[in-house]
C-alpha cells in the first residue's frame, strides 16, 4: 500500500522520533537541466532509507547537495531541526554526515590503509602512526571479508575492492548519518551480505542510513522506508513493507499503478514481468552453433591469471562467473590485449592471431566495455557524441574522419535506443548521471558493430527498467551473430542470460557449464568447492 508522502508522518509505521536530517524544497538547476525541483526527504535515526529512481532522476545530485558538494538554488537542509548550509564535504563530515559517492572518490596513488584513514590518522607522539593505521585498516577490511595488502597503492586493486575501501572509509567515521550512493553496484552477493550485516548493526546503534541502489532485491532486503524520485522530483515516500516491487517500479518510471494494492509480494513474479521472459524468448531459437569465433589456449599472465582455455562462438553469450577477484576482469583484459599475456595463443576464425594491444583486438572485431567507467571509459570533458564515436573513429583511422552529420545521427540513434538521458548529444559526458554515462560507453562499443563484445559489468549503475532493455538489446545482437562475453557481479543475471558459463576461482578456470546445467546454488557450490578444477 502506498502512502502519500505528506501523510507518511501519520502512519503507524513511521518512526516516532524526530528526523535527524530533513530536506525541504530543494531545487538545483544545471545549465540546461533542472536536476532537482522542490525535493524533500526525511531521515530518521535507526533506519535504512532507500532512495530509488531511474538513471538521471536526481539521486546523486540530491546527495551532493546534502553533503556540500553543490549548493542548492533553493531549499533548506535541517540537521536535528537546525538549518545547516554545508559548503564542503569537509564541513558535512564535521557535522556528522559520512558519504560514499557514486563514483569511487579515492586517491589511487595512496595506499589502501591511507585511503581509509586520511584526514583522521591514528597519531602517536603527534605524528602519524603508520603501524597502527595499517593494522586498523586491515581489521576494518577484514570485517568486510577482504584480506589484502593494505600497504599497497589503491590503484593496484580492481574497482570492486576500491568500492569496499570507500565504504570502509565511510564506516570508519563516527557519524550520525551515513550516505551510500550505489555502493553495491560492482559487489558480489557475499560482499553485499557482509555490508548489510554491518549496516544492520549500525542501524541498531541508531545511525540514519541513506542508501541508493538499483537492485530491488537489496532494497527489500535492508530498507525500512523508500523515497522514490522521478525526473528531479520526489514521487513519494513509502514504508518498504507496504510497497510492492511492481508498484515501486511503476512509480519510478511513472506508469499508472493499475495493479492495485493487493499485488502479491514475492519477487519471482516481478522477475517474470521484467526480464526473464524476454530473455528466454530471445534464446528460444538460438541458432545452430557455428565454428568458434575466438579460441584462446593457455592464455595467462603471471600473478594475474593461470593459463586459461576459452572458446566463444558467434551468436553465443558466454558468461564468466566467479567471486570478487577471481580473475574475470583479468581474463577479459588479456583477451582484449589491454594487458599483455605472457603465455598462450589466440585464434580468430580458426587462424592464429597476435593480440598485443587493444588496437589489435579491435581490428580483429572485438570490443571491450570496461568495468571502471571513470578511469578506463569516460572521457569526461568530451561530449556524448564524441564519446560514442571514439572507438569507431579510432578504428577508422586518423584521416578518415566520420562526417559530422553522420556522427550526430549515430549518437542520436544510440541516445534513443539506449534511452540515454541527456540534454543533447553535445553535452559533456561528465555532466550525465552515472547510469547514463554507462549507457554512453556501451553505445561506444555497440557503434563499432564488433563481432565479439566483452562486457565487464555493463549494467553497473543502470536502473532496473533500463537494465532489462539493455540486456534485451544485447540479446538481440547476439541472436544476429555477435559473440558476447558477459561478466557481471549479479550471479542471477549471468545465469539467466548466458548460453554457456565458465566458472573462475582463484584466477583459474574451474569448470564450464551449459545453459540450464546450473542454478545459483550449484554455481556457488562449484565456486566454493572448486572440485572440478581443470
Amino acid at each position, binding site marked *: 500500500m502506498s502512502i502519500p508522502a505528506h501523510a507518511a508522518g501519520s502512519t503507524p509505521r513511521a518512526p516516532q522520533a524526530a528526523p535527524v536530517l530533513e530536506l525541504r524544497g530543494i531545487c538545483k538547476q544545471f545549465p540546461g537541466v533542472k536536476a532537482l525541483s522542490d525535493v524533500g526527504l526525511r531521515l530518521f535515526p535507526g533506519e535504512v532509507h532507500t532512495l530509488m529512481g531511474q538513471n538521471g532522476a536526481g539521486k546523486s545530485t540530491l546527495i551532493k547537495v546534502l553533503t556540500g558538494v553543490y549548493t542548492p538554488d533553493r531549499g533548506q537542509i535541517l540537521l536535528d531541526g537546525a538549518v545547516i548550509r554545508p559548503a564542503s564535504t569537509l564541513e558535512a563530515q564535521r557535522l556528522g554526515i559520512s558519504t560514499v559517492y557514486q563514483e569511487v572518490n579515492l586517491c589511487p596513488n595512496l595506499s589502501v590503509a591511507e585511503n581509509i584513514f586520511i584526514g583522521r590518522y591514528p597519531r602517536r607522539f603527534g605524528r602519524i602512526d603508520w603501524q597502527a593505521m595499517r593494522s586498523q585498516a586491515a581489521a576494518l577490511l577484514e570485517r568486510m571479508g577482504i584480506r589484502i595488502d593494505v600497504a599497497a597503492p589503491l590503484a593496484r586493486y580492481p574497482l570492486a575492492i576500491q568500492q569496499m575501501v570507500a565504504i570502509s572509509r565511510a564506516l570508519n567515521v563516527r557519524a550520525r548519518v551515513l550516505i551510500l550512493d550505489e555502493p553495491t553496484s560492482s559487489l558480489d552477493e557475499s560482499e553485499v551480505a557482509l555490508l548489510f550485516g554491518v549496516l544492520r548493526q549500525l542501524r541498531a546503534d541508531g545511525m540514519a542510513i541513506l542508501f541508493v541502489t538499483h537492485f530491488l532485491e537489496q532494497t527489500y532486503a535492508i530498507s525500512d522506508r523508500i523515497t522514490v524520485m522521478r525526473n528531479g522530483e520526489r514521487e513519494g515516500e513509502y514504508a518498504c513493507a507496504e510497497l510492492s516491487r511492481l508498484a515501486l517500479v511503476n512509480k519510478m518510471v511513472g506508469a499508472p499503478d493499475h495493479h492495485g494494492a493487493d499485488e502479491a509480494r514475492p519477487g519471482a513474479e516481478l522477475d517474470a514481468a521484467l526480464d526473464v521472459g524476454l530473455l528466454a524468448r530471445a534464446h528460444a531459437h538460438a541458432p545452430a552453433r557455428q565454428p568458434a569465433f575466438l579460441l584462446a589456449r593457455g592464455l595467462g599472465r603471471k600473478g594475474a591469471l593461470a593459463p586459461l582455455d576459452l572458446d566463444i562462438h558467434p551468436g553465443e553469450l558466454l558468461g564468466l562467473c566467479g567471486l570478487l577477484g577471481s580473475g574475470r576482469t583479468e581474463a577479459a583484459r588479456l583477451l582484449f590485449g589491454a594487458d599483455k599475456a605472457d603465455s598462450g595463443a589466440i585464434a580468430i576464425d580458426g587462424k592464429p592471431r597476435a593480440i598485443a*594491444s587493444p588496437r589489435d583486438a579491435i581490428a580483429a572485431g572485438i570490443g571491450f566495455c570496461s568495468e571502471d567507467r571513470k578511469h578506463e571509459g569516460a*572521457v569526461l570533458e568530451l561530449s556524448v557524441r564524441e564519446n560514442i564515436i*571514439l572507438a569507431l573513429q579510432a578504428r577508422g583511422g586518423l584521416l578518415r574522419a566520420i562526417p559530422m552529420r553522420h556522427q550526430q545521427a549515430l549518437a542520436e540513434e544510440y541516445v534513443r535506443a539506449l534511452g540515454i538521458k541527456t540534454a543533447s548529444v553535445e553535452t559533456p559526458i561528465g555532466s550525465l548521471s552515472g547510469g547514463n554515462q554507462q549507457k554512453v560507453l556501451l553505445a561506444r562499443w555497440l557503434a563499432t558493430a564488433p563481432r565479439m563484445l566483452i562486457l565487464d559489468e555493463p549494467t553497473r549503475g543502470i536502473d532496473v527498467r533500463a537494465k532489462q532493455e539493455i540486456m534485451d538489446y544485447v540479446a538481440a545482437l547476439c541472436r544476429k551473430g555477435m559473440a558476447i562475453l558477459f561478466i557481471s557481479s549479479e550471479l542471477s543475471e549471468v545465469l539467466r542470460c548466458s548460453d554457456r558459463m565458465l566458472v573462475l576461482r582463484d584466477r583459474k578456470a574451474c569448470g564450464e557449464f551449459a545453459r540450464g546445467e546450473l542454478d545459483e546454488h550449484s554455481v556457488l557450490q562449484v565456486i566454493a568447492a572448486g572440485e572440478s578444477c581443470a
Partner: protein
Amino acid sequence: MFVRHPLFRPLAALALLLLVDLLLIPGFFHLEVKDGHLYGSLIDIVNRAAPLMLAALGMTLVIATRGIDISVGAVVAISGTVAAMLVGGGMVINHGVPEYVSRVPMAWALAAALGAALLCGAWNGLLVAGLGLQPIVATLILMVAGRGLAQLMTDGQIVTVYYQPYFFIGGGYLLGLPFALYIVGAVFLATALLMRRTALGLFIQTVGINPVAARLAGVRTAVLIFLVYVFCSACAGLAGLMISANIKSADANNAGLLLELDAILAVTLGGTSLGGGKFSLVGSVVGALIIQTLTYTIYSLGLAPEVNMVVKSAVVFLVCLSQSAEFKTMWGRLRARALHSKQGGTV
C-alpha cells in the same frame, strides 16, 4: 551567450591592452604606407609576435596531450643556425666594394633547417612516447644540449647572412603585410583544418583527458604523442627561420632564449589548461598577441628597464584575474555588499 564563449576573455584582455595603448601612446594606431607596405606599431607587433605565435601553436597541441616542450628555444637556435650557415656566405671585399654570395641554394638550406627541427621533434617524441620519460625531463635534455649543438656548429659566433632573398621570410612584405604573417596564417589554417577535418583533434583531446580510456578505445596514443612533439618542433623550426631572417643572422647563443616560457604563457593566456584536453588554437594566437602587445607597450611607454618585469607581471596577474570566473563572482559579491551597506547607511 557571446560572453560565455571561451575566446571572449582572452580577446577582451587584448582589447583592453590596446585601449590602454590608444589612450597612453600617441600615434599607436597610426598606420602609413612606406615603400609599398604598411608601417606602424601594429604591424611591428604582429611581425614580432609571428615566431611566438608559431611556437604557441605547436605548444598548444603538446599541452593538449598533457605534455610540455621546453626545448622550443633550442630548436629555434638550431634551425636558424643551420639555415644561416647554409645560406650564409660571407662578405668579400673586391677593390673596396663589398660583394655578397650565398653558399647553397636557399631551398636546400630551408629544407635542411626544417629537417633538423623535425629530427629534434622526433627525438623528443621518441623519449616521451617511446621511452615514457616525463615530458619536462625529456625535453630538458634537448633544451640543454640543443643550444650547445647550435653553438658547436657556429663555434659560438654569430653567423651573419648576406643573401637578400632569405630576409624575406622574416622581414619581407607581401601585399603590404609582413610575409611572416602569411606563414603563421598558413600554419594556423592547416592546423585548424587538420583538427577539424580529421580525427586528430578528437584523439589529441582524448589522450590529454584520459589516456587509459584512449588506449582501450583503440587510439594510437604513442604515435599521436610522437607526432605532436614533431609538430611542435617543426613550428619552432619555422619560428627559428623567421627570427634569423629577421635579424639577418643566426645567434645560436641568444636566439629563442626563453621562447618556450613565452609560448607556454601564450597558450595558457589563450585559455588552454596545462592539464591537457580541450585546447584552443585561436586562443594561443591571441595569447601570443597579448604578450607581444604588452612588451611593445612597455617599450613605447618609455618605462625604465628596471620596472619592465614588475609591469609585465602585474599585467599578467590582471589578465588572469579578469579571466577567472571565481574572481568575477567574488567581485560581484563585494560590490553587492558595498552597495548594501551604503543603502543600510542611508536608511
